[in-house]
């Protein structure tokens, strides 16, 4: 155990006392109508130095991929190349208004046009929209496209089928689009139970959402049969691209007969996740769905790029403007750097790392389902929980103590005491060995020490129940409640 995170009693920014040194003062009279006038504003008034120190201190109480391995399952937390940071913050990105005349946006339009082509090649789809802002937003877009398609064919279909191992965003996105969600169980092999799927498919089924490889890290080997069944029922097959990092250059959603695909550019194509975002969630479709894609479409004529708004079958817009452009720049740069062979190597390395790490911990942790995994794998702490009272959450906290980010825990829910581990391709054997050793040490460690972890982080185990009970969600609420507690 050699990790120590910074531990400051850093006050809230509202509690800091300082002096505003922002040199832009104006006492100009402006006439806001009296009924609309604001008299006071209570933001902190601090110097830049004080603000920078505050956030630098806070940052030291945070952990990112640049600090160490971050194998959060299904989140693909790879180390990201820094050239992408540089390119996405150029003035030709930052200082460009999206509604400028097309003539003054040619660089941006070209980049988006080229990126769409790259994503088509990677996914085996015919057309891509870059508009959705995140993976879940891509799913929602996919569901809107599904609705538009069926409605254009005068079909009343109101159900979307998702496997029980699907990411929570799948059922949530389908429900947001107004669909009734039908969950199908996984079979004993961890893959979609085809019999159960068959029983659920009907003329009411609008789409089936599949993640392949699935959240257990298993490749849905019967994908061919599955796709046939779905299409025979008249439904569309949706590909959740969260796990695309596992298959690039080996297969494509297109080859697997998917109709709609979303990409998580921030996962597969190297964008730092920013503590929760921004990401980008482009959507690719087959030719027959292209007319429904959001507007505008980027078109190219004689080397000039233009935005096309006039498309009668389009679903319209899913967010304003064209997408998270600065993220698109990063993804494009990364794809350029890697090229086709490089991306294939990314997937191979990611799968090798995952299988290697799995093999290192397999004896000590239970490993439900088949041996061979793709980019991630799920282990179970069920035995440890029964024998020593060490639960998945305890293991997670004990990993933090050792300077490692924890895996995703308690997901997928079909595995008891699940730990979902995705090492990604950017970690070395040495790092994986250390992570494996930490997992083994924890399993064999003093249960009391593990259950009281973490000890080496900025704070000890936090009281989530207190947070949900008190609901102190802002400084306003805090001030109202102050006096009741000393926090």
């Amino acid at each position, binding site marked *: 155990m050699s990790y120590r995170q910074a531990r400051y009693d850093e006050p809230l920014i509202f509690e800091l006392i300082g002096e505003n040194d922002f040199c832009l003062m104006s006492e100009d009279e402006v006439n806001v109508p009296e009924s609309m006038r604001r008299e006071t504003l209570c933001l902190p008034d601090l110097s830049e130095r004080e603000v920078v120190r505050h956030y630098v201190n806070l940052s030291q109480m945070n952990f990112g991929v640049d600090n160490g391995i971050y194998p959060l399952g299904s989140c693909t937390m790879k180390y990201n190349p820094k050239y992408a940071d540089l390119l996405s913050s150029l003035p030709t990105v930052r200082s460009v208004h999206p509604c400028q005349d097309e003539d003054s946006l040619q660089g941006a339009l070209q980049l988006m046009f080229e990126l769409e082509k790259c994503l088509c090649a990677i996914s085996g789809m015919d057309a891509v929209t870059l508009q959705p802002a995140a993976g879940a937003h891509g799913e929602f877009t996919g569901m809107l496209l599904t609705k538009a398609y069926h409605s254009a064919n005068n079909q009343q279909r109101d159900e979307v089928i998702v496997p029980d191992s699907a990411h929570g965003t799948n059922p949530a996105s389908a429900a947001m689009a107004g669909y009734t969600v039908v969950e199908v169980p996984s079979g004993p092999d961890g893959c979609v139970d085809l019999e159960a799927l068959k029983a659920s498919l009907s003329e009411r089924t609008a789409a089936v959402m599949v993640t392949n490889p699935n959240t257990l890290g298993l490749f849905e080997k019967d994908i061919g049969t599955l796709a046939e069944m779905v299409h025979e029922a008249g439904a569309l097959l949706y590909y959740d691209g969260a796990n695309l990092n596992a298959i690039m250059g080996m297969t494509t959603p297109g080859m697997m007969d998917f109709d709609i695909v979303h990409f998580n550019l921030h996962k597969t194509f190297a964008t730092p996740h920013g503590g929760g975002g921004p990401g980008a969630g482009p959507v690719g479709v087959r030719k027959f769905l292209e007319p429904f894609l959001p507007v505008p479409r980027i078109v190219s004529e004689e080397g000039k790029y233009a935005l096309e708004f006039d498309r009668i079958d389009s679903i319209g817009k899913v967010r304003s403007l064209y997408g998270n452009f600065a993220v698109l720049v990063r993804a494009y740069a990364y794809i350029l750097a890697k090229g086709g062979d490089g991306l294939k190597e990314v997937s191979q390395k990611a799968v090798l790392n995952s299988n290697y790490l799995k093999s290192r911990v397999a004896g000590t942790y239970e490993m439900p389902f088949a041996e061979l995994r793709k980019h991630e794998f799920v282990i179970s702490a069920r035995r440890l929980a029964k024998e020593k009272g060490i639960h998945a959450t305890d293991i997670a906290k004990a990993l933090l103590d050792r300077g490692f980010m924890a895996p995703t825990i308690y997901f997928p829910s079909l595995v008891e005491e699940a730990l979902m581990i995705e090492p990604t391709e950017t970690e070395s*054997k040495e790092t994986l060995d250390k992570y494996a050793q930490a997992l083994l040490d924890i399993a064999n460690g003093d249960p009391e020490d593990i259950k009281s972890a973490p000890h080496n982080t900025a704070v000890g185990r936090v009281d989530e129940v207190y947070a949900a009970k008190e609901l102190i969600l802002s400084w306003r609420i805090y001030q109202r409640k102050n006096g009741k507690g000393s926090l």
Partner: protein
Amino acid sequence: MADTDDPAKQTIYWDTGLGVDVTMSLDHRMLEELGIKSAEELFSDIPEKVRIEGMLLPQGKSEMEVIRTVQDMLSKNLTAEQAPCFLGGGIYHHFIPSAVSTITSRSEFLTSYTPYQAEISQGMLQSMFEYQSMISELTAMDVVNSSNYDWSTALGEAATMCHRILPKKTFLVPEAMNWEKRSVLRNYVSGPELNIVEYSYDPYTGEADLEDIRQKMTQDVCGLYIEVPNLFGIIDSRAPLLKKEFPEVPLVVGVNPLSLALVRPPGEYGADIVIGEGQSLGLPMNVGGPLLGLFACTLEHVRKMPGRLIGLTKDNAGRRAFCMTLQTREQHIRRSKATSNICTNEALLAIAVSAYLGMVGSKGLRALARINMRNAQSLMQRIDELDGFASPFFNGAHFNEFVVKTTVRPEKLNKLLLRHGIIGGMPMHKHVPRLNDHVLLTTTEMNSAEDIDRLIAALKEVVQ
């Protein structure tokens, strides 16, 4: 470098293969330990039938080549530093103190993800709590989520949240609204099948037409939406009357948060939900993304709210700590019954906004808002003196943008201004079809007196 003066010849000595490749090559020790010869064997579970040989993508490039290629491509964009920008309409060219990116470039923030493990993520969690708190102060609302994608998606989520609060089927919106928001809204309400009904505006003041709202306020209304400032840049003085008149109907107010430095916050006049675009608070324009959807509500409705929330709590030693809370609303717990599907959000931009507000402070923000407003006032008067323009077209009180009626078609006007090296305003007919000879002009603190003189001179010339 070669010892020749001919630059074309010099380049042949450059090594274009420089730079870093973050994916290391396959480690054969791992293959050996797994008892396999190649990584291909790890893909034996992928049926032959769906296999591919490779992808139709170009060969990879070095870091150096990538930087050059992308830089060159993007150099075909015109920036607001190269040409004075009078374009706004929701996205604005503002000054951003350099230290904002110093803070958001901190690797510990930049390369982390959603703080599922609170103990090792206190920095992010406290920063997000501070963001929530600052937007809460600005809007005078108790609860703020830790971000939506942008204003338009926040509006979509606000409408469905109204429907959860009051399960009726009609959502009232202004006719004077950006068409993109209207389109996004329609998609977001297609799930619960809400009707979007528009109310008109007063043709003289540009403010909401209260009489029309009264007429459209049927028993079926689940929510009422108004923007302050509105599409025309007008600080709509009707907004505070709405809750008084329709106390039972959830009120959603859309804001440009910068204006709240001077304008009465919606929390003071009964808003149930406040949304807006956070971009005007220290975020770059980014060709339109990423942006930052603001989303605030009253404590009463917090359980019906979309998005992530950070709460203040304590650790096992009783020390102050922060964690995500009310996660049972969210998709990873509640799945199809979640209040929203949002997962990845715009967290880093929320930190940027907090850092910006921290540096600018109350005094700075009020000063900035004054300068924005004053610039617009002076520009609208000067344009009005020109032949061929009526400015402002509406006579309500404007914040930092205003509608001008022109005798030159707006698109043509913009092309002509571009020839003068000026980025013109936003044509209005896309948003409100009957305003087909109208353009929305915007000023910020970035428009110097010289910029404004240049615009006036160009407009004079264009009309002649």
